[in-house]
């Protein structure tokens, strides 16, 4: 094997999101502390941990929805340069959220407009990035409803009349229609029954693979992490206590807390 030189790996890929030593406190109360993480194009990173461990806090800081108390979050802009999220103006950040990011909330009511039609919920995002042609917007909306398995004849219905699973699928369509480069998801399958969850997960798996999305997925469900992610972080009391290749963390966990988490579920 000596014929082959031990070349260093040409690391051509550059991170899309770069998080360094990020902490967030709610007054005196700890949200998350000293988290560092890089997210690369096309990879799915799961954040797991028990209730109150700081997952949502971390996600909100990454997506610019919450200002960290310390540390930095940088995003690679389309010009190839890393920019600090919190160095951007509010307007720039909002534009980025519309063009480059998606955010899927656990409660679809937070991510949807409940009083406009399903078609408008999807079309609105296209208009926000400058699409003005009614015909193409409606056609794209229809295509996306089909992709998330919502029947075409529901396009003019308001999401209020949808089941929880349908609302969540609509929220996903609304977020992905603009082909964001990075999607944040907070418990995307939480609050749904098991069979609905399986369907949604399968859908997410396929979309993430087909679109080559990068995503950060917060979940307390290790099976969701196993199915969706390449890498995972385990959080406890606001800090990341273990991270690595998803199947390694799940099958060969090192930390006492991770071993406890993995052993408390039947099979993942």
């Amino acid at each position, binding site marked *: 094997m000596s014929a082959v030189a*031990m070349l260093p790996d040409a690391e051509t890929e550059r991170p899309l999101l770069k998080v360094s030593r990020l902490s967030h406190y709610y007054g005196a109360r700890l949200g998350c502390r000293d988290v560092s993480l890089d997210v690369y194009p096309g990879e799915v990173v799961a954040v797991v941990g028990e209730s109150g461990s700081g997952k949502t806090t971390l996600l909100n800081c990454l997506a610019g929805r919450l200002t960290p108390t310390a540390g930095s979050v940088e995003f690679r802009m389309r010009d190839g340069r890393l920019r600090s999220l919190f160095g951007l103006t509010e307007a720039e950040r909002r534009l980025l959220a519309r063009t480059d990011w998606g955010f899927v909330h656990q409660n679809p009511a937070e991510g949807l407009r409940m009083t406009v039609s399903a078609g408008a919920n999807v079309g609105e995002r296209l208009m926000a990035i400058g699409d003005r042609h009614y015909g193409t917007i409606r056609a794209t909306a229809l295509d996306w409803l089909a992709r998330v398995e919502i029947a075409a004849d529901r396009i003019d219905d308001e999401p209020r009349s949808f089941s929880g699973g349908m609302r969540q699928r609509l929220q996903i369509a609304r977020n992905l229609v603009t082909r964001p480069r990075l999607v944040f998801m907070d418990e995307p399958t939480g609050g749904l029954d098991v069979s609905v969850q399986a369907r949604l997960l399968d859908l997410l798996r396929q979309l993430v693979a087909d679109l080559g999305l990068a995503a950060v997925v917060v979940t307390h469900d290790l099976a969701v992490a196993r199915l969706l992610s390449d890498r995972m972080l385990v959080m406890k009391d606001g800090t990341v206590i273990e991270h690595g290749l998803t199947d390694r963390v799940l099958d*060969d966990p090192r930390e*006492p807390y991770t071993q406890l988490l993995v052993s408390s579920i039947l099979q993942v």
Partner: protein
Amino acid sequence: MATRIVVSGLSKSFVMHLQGGVQLPVVQGVDFSVDAGECVVLGGPSGAGKSSILKMVYGNYGADGGQILVRDGERLVDVASADPRRIVRLRQTTIGYVSQFLRVVPRVSALDVVAEPLVARGIDRALARSRARELLARLNVPERLYTLPPATFSGGEQQRVNVARGFVTDHPVLLLDEPTASLDAANRAVVVDLIREKKKQGVAMLGIFHDEEVRAAVADRVVDVMAFRAAA
């Protein structure tokens, strides 16, 4: 023949924190290599650490020490120290793995379970499915099952889906954990043929086979894992 895997000084133990932190040594000083076109078999009794070694080569288990060099095109990657993203890429292009049991994904059909590793390598879905179909047919999986998720299949049917998934790609390294364990004689023979074809194509294989007959038919060498038994 080119060497594809070199394992040296590899050690592994588990620390069971839920059992008072007891340390469970598994193997130490593991040394062996696998050349292209060769099938090396890990031998030894149950609990010896055969699957653990295979999983470390796949990056599924972490190593405590030592090296696992795998040739990836013109490079060598040390799986024991590679970062997770490197391992993800290595699995996509270089290392295939047939686990002892199929891990079923809800709602994904048998055909797509098998086609998926090809799609992940950028092969057109229709072409991937037709290759998957051929392999499932060779393994005598009834056609009516192709569109169903394997969750409800028999043990032997699931195992054949799993074997097809591992053999469908042309990964230059293939890891096999008892791929014939729950198969009947006819299907064991199909797997033996598949392994022989892979050898001809120059694939380096590292496998575990309990069945004496299968082992005799495919093994170029047997590495006795008991020689690497770690002292408790």
